[in-house]
């Protein structure tokens, strides 16, 4: 039998390659001539063709999302810098301390610090700054409306051609940033800001939400040009006046906006009346705001705002001036000559359940396979940025091994740092944003504290989508199943966590 099979062994490889579609037409024709004359090879070819058919069905899908990755990379590369290089360069020129060149436990190093986070173009996009603070202005006019009529406040804000005010950013009571916001109706904005710890100054100018923006760092002659993708199609959301109207309408019409009087106090020598508002905004997962204003004029004196996603972070706005003269050149999106340009694209699409799963997955990679203790973005950032993962890499034993390991760790640190940057800049924020943006009727809960990534049949998050009868339950292996009832997990945390504002 071996004698009979032996001649066919010559054809074994060509037949395999023919089944795999890897032969030239001539080579395949030759192989097929043999196949037609040899029953054993014909059967083998048939079986191989089935194998190859099954394999071909598993071709990796490439969708718009994947193609966008390549486009972005190509664009970043050809515009002078790869994205990671650009981000590293941004950090470097902004004065970040150089990372240690070696060290076996790179995962506990501090790849970022808060000033970098606050500076990160994607995590602290210019549009978000405007929405954050301007939302406060708009809501002031509703909140203050409990004294004068609401219409008295709507009219001036809608008719205002320009707005200017100061702001101070705090994290856990520590002032991190301060600056001035200017808005030229309907949609152009400018933020002049200073980072307190480094005294680094920068200017962000934006054309509209979802539109092009630039971040200028005059000291370093650096310009980060952001051309966002997947911006909302709602035209109202693309200009600041539209956003203001949305906030006003939400505050007027939505029953879930809570208003509590805070009484009176003196601010900067002026008598002020205060209110605490809480609710949800057009692009805001949930907020708590203290408003203090002049009851005589209806104008705001001070607005303090936190959001549910990052409870430790607070912005205080003051010194409001309306309808002042602002030169149009202040809002120019042209990069001044002599600036180094770095192009980026931030994703502004609305996050969904997949975003949250991706956040869990990537957090697990960064943390050593565990879930965050809570879905508080601030605390998650603290853990990722300051503390590193709970598990540490094993230290090498021998001197030689240690040197090799250090080099590898350094390179590994680069890869992990890239992931951290992505997590901080977009991946993490989007997923947590989806979770905390769920309405109360979704009955969302989180139970991932102490759970290991991959643990089967351990529910970590569940919620009921709008108009759905069943719950969507995400398990620790990141699978999703539906359930008529919510899982019973002691100490599961409601999401978003009940607000406990300290402002």
């Amino acid at each position: 039998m071996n004698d009979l099979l032996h001649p066919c062994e010559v054809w074994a490889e060509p037949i395999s390659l023919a089944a795999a579609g890897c032969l030239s037409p001539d080579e395949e024709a030759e192989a097929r001539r043999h196949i037609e004359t040899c029953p054993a090879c014909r059967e083998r070819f048939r079986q191989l063709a089935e194998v190859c058919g099954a394999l071909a069905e598993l071709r990796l899908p490439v969708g718009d999302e994947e193609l966008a990755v390549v486009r972005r990379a190509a664009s970043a590369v050809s515009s002078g810098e790869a994205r990671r290089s650009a981000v590293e360069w941004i950090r470097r020129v902004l004065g970040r301390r150089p990372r240690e060149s070696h060290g076996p436990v790179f995962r506990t190093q501090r790849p970022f610090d808060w000033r970098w986070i606050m500076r990160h173009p994607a995590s602290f996009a210019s549009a978000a700054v405007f929405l954050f603070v301007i939302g406060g202005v708009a809501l002031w006019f509703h909140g203050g409306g409990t004294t004068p009529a609401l219409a008295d406040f709507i009219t001036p804000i809608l008719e205002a051609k320009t707005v200017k005010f100061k702001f101070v950013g705090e994290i856990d009571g520590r002032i991190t940033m301060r600056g001035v916001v200017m808005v030229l109706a309907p949609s152009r904005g400018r933020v002049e800001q200073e980072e307190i710890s480094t005294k680094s100054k920068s200017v962000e100018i934006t054309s509209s939400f979802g539109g092009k923006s630039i971040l200028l760092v005059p000291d370093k002659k650096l310009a980060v040009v952001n051309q966002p993708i997947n911006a909302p199609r709602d035209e109202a959301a693309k200009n600041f006046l539209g956003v203001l109207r949305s906030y006003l309408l939400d505050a007027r019409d939505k029953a879930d906006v809570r208003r509590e009087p805070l009484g009176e106090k003196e601010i900067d020598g002026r008598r002020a009346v205060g209110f605490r508002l809480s609710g949800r905004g057009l692009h805001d997962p949930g907020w708590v705001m203290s408003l203090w204003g002049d009851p005589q004029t209806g104008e705001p004196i001070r607005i303090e705002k936190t959001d549910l996603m990052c409870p430790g972070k607070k912005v205080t706005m003051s010194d409001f001036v309306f309808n002042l003269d602002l030169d149009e050149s202040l809002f120019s999106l042209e990069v001044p000559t002599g600036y180094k340009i770095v192009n980026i694209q931030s994703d502004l699409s609305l996050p969904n359940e997949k975003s949250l799963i991706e956040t869990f997955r990537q957090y697990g990679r960064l943390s050593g396979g565990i879930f965050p203790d809570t879905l508080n973005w601030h605390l998650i950032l603290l853990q990722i940025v300051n503390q590193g993962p709970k598990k540490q890499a094993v230290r090498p034993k021998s001197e030689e091994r240690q040197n090799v390991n250090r080099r590898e760790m350094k390179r590994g640190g680069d890869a992990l740092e890239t992931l951290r940057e992505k997590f901080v800049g977009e991946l993490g924020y989007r997923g947590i944003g989806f979770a905390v943006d769920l309405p109360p009727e979704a009955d969302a809960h989180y139970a991932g504290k102490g759970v290991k990534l991959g643990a089967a049949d351990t529910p970590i998050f569940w919620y009921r989508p709008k108009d759905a009868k069943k719950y969507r339950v995400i398990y620790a292996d990141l699978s999703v199943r539906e359930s008529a009832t919510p899982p019973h997990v002691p100490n599961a945390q409601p999401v978003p966590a009940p607000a406990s504002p300290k402002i």
Partner: protein
Amino acid sequence: MDVHQDDQCELIGRAQAGEAAAFERLAEQHAARLWRGALALGRDRHWAEDLVQETLLEAWRSLPRFDGRCRFSTWLYGILRHRFLKGRRRHDAARPSAAAALEEDHLAAWLPDRCAEASEDARRVRQAVASLPEEHRLVVELRFFAGATLEEIAAALDCPLGTVKSRLHHALEKLRQMKLAVNLFAPSRETRESKP
């Protein structure tokens, strides 16, 4: 994706002259192949993104040295392989715990969304491929999952074309034997139904 050779030659020439738009167009033409190759090698979505980025960066810098002796896609796969090998050990070392966690079901981690929807047959096929020796597995994944040509695989794995053919043959033969042993690759429903 079929790429018109003349168009591609012109684009390469313009990109070599430093025209960014031409390079972006080239990348666009090879985006699907590059992404699949990166994912097949990296087996991790985010590493694949890094590989794509690093490959394009190196391609942009090295483009003046591209002499057209091989297809552009083959050249690109060569760079991809270089980046893959360079980052491989550090990538694995960078996430010891997470890697272990993900390794338990690396296929799910590889294609999280689609994997959940995949049929049981597809899962078994993936597992069969994963059980192959690495040199065989990579050839199969690049050929079938990434859609690479034999020349591109040779560039990606930095081995002679004959070696790629031999590995592919042996890999397919092993998978065929698995199929015979446990009926791993069930015929498609249409095939089953057409049989008496």
